[in-house]
């Protein structure tokens, strides 16, 4: 029992991590995948922050005496993990932004963000490229080019 309760923050982090990982792998919707990814990344923040904690310690700003000299013997919380996690949060936000932007572009290009439908459409793309080769109607312009350029004007 002590084993479980003593490190409950780590257990929570692990539960979050696995939830996120499960969501990334199982969900077919690209946006849901990204949400899973964010949960997964957030769990890492918890692990780091837990590592910085020192029980009963002072917050990491020098405790000064009357002459503005730092006191000796004060135990401080480790501030470094928090700073590292600020960077990791920024990275996470950037990843989410790029991922969502890609999801929007995928929706524009394919008309769906469901993975199963995307796989079907991609296979159709590959097949069309091969069929076109057999017919040799337009060897200069494969079909894959037209799909994007027709949309390209808007952007």
């Amino acid at each position, binding site marked *: 029992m002590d084993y479980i309760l003593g490190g409950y923050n780590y257990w929570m982090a692990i539960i979050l991590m696995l939830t996120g*990982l499960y969501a*990334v792998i199982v969900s077919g919707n*690209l946006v849901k*995948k990204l949400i899973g*990814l964010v949960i*997964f*990344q957030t769990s*890492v923040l918890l*692990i*780091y922050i837990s*590592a910085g904690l*020192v029980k009963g310690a002072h917050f990491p700003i020098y405790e000064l005496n009357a002459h503005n000299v730092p006191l000796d*013997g*004060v*135990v*401080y919380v480790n501030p*470094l*993990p928090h700073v*590292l996690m600020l*960077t*990791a949060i920024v*990275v996470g936000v*950037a*990843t989410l932004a*790029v*991922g969502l932007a*890609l*999801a929007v*572009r*995928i929706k524009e*290009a*394919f008309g769906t963000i469901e993975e199963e439908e*995307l796989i079907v459409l*991609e296979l159709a*793309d590959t097949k069309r*490229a*091969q069929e076109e*080769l057999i017919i*040799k109607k337009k*060897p*200069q*312009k*494969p079909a*894959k*080019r037209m*799909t*994007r*350029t027709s949309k*390209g004007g808007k*952007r």
Partner: protein
Amino acid sequence: MIENNLPALHVVIPLIAAGVCALFKKDVWPFRIACVALLCSFAAVVTMLTQVAGGDVISYFMGDWGRKDYYDAMTGVKDSAVVGIEYRIDMLNIIVLLLISFIGLVMLPYAKHSIEAEIPRQKRSLFYVMFLLCFAGMLGIVTTGDVFNIYVFIEITSLSTYTLIALGRDRRALTSSFEYLIMGTLGATFILIGIGLLYMMTGTLNLVDMSVRLEEVSHTNPVIAAFAFITLGLAMKIALFPVHIWLTNAYAYAPSFVSAFLSATATKVMIYVFIRLIYDVFGQDFSFAFMPLSEILITLAILGIVVGSVTAVYQQNVKRLLAFSSVAQLGYMTLALGLATETGLVATIVHLSNHALSKGLLFLCVGAVVLRVGGSRVDDFNGVAKQMPLTMAAFVLGGFSLIGMPLTAGFISKWYLLQALLEEGHIALVIVLLISSLLAIVYIWRVVEAAYFKERDAKAKKLTEAPLGMLISMAVLVCANIYFGVMTDFTLGFARDAASQLFHGGL
């Protein structure tokens, strides 16, 4: 003044240049700025090369703020530790730095023509922004001596890579970029967890400090978990066999220049990080004797070599074919790494640079054909050699180097790989290697056959040779492939010194 700050400048200059490029709408100035930035980086790396060539190590602290004495109130111990961010350059990373900055600089003239054909006008200046960010990130990963810094630079590189891949003309570029984003972020986050566990056990982020302090705690569970997380994360980034799926799609649909640049650098940088962490931080006793890394790497590498080569033979798309061949070649590198011998390490380092040269060249040639013909299927190559003789000659030479013909760079690394395998008495692995080389002949021959011995559609428009800028890039890489195949002193000498530095001295 400038000389003292070179270890920072070669990363910072492209990083700032990326910001400056973002201010321009047209792509004329961004191209020039990128040229200047890459030239500066390359010059800085070459200067540092002369400084570390004798076996010295350059240690540079960001902001001249680094080693501090501290007082631990809990234990009452006075100690000193590295608190700042250290940039550290030794024999191993200078060779990777040189490779990246050389490839970037050489491919830049090619980029101009290639992206003018493949990327819409309003996005071209942003392309240079992303390219410079990616370039700076890679140099940063290799230069830094701080574990968390490695993670941040990995993410800078990855995020710009996702954008670069998504610029491809084919709409499948978007989905493959998304796939890479998911896999890449999972991998990077695994690395981050591993770094966190290491930090908990050692209380430092500096690679040198960490390797010293890990010796005391090396057999504890968190360190073992950290090792597993980091190995898995890096395997995803390296595109080791079972987690290689992102690579083939990403390289197949990305713009030609991006495939060429990434195939030559991105995975190589990750292999460097792998070598650095295994040999310097965890130490080879822990990685190979205590943990079963050798067995895992060799098994996965062989599977990667076989599956990659066999799948490459059946590909219709030449870029995809080369991507699968990359999976096999990355298998060679991890195989040599898994042997855990000094010769194996030399083979990894040499193959890392030589494969970058040959695969980069092959992707450049395919890009030139894509520019003129419009597609990258094997059948698009029919009869191309008559109208684009120089491009196809370069392709053939790149193919020779990939297969490992004597007098090309690829031969040297294959030779070393064979030596490393024979030293350990792995005859079965030698046979796998030879079979894979035969398969390489088959898939390169398919393209060569189409280009030289098949007739082009009579109605199709006439092709012209690739533009001069592209030819210059290809010519330089052809020269490099031949030069490093004949004059082996430079690469081999450096790789040997780097390997012995890693094996015997550590950092």
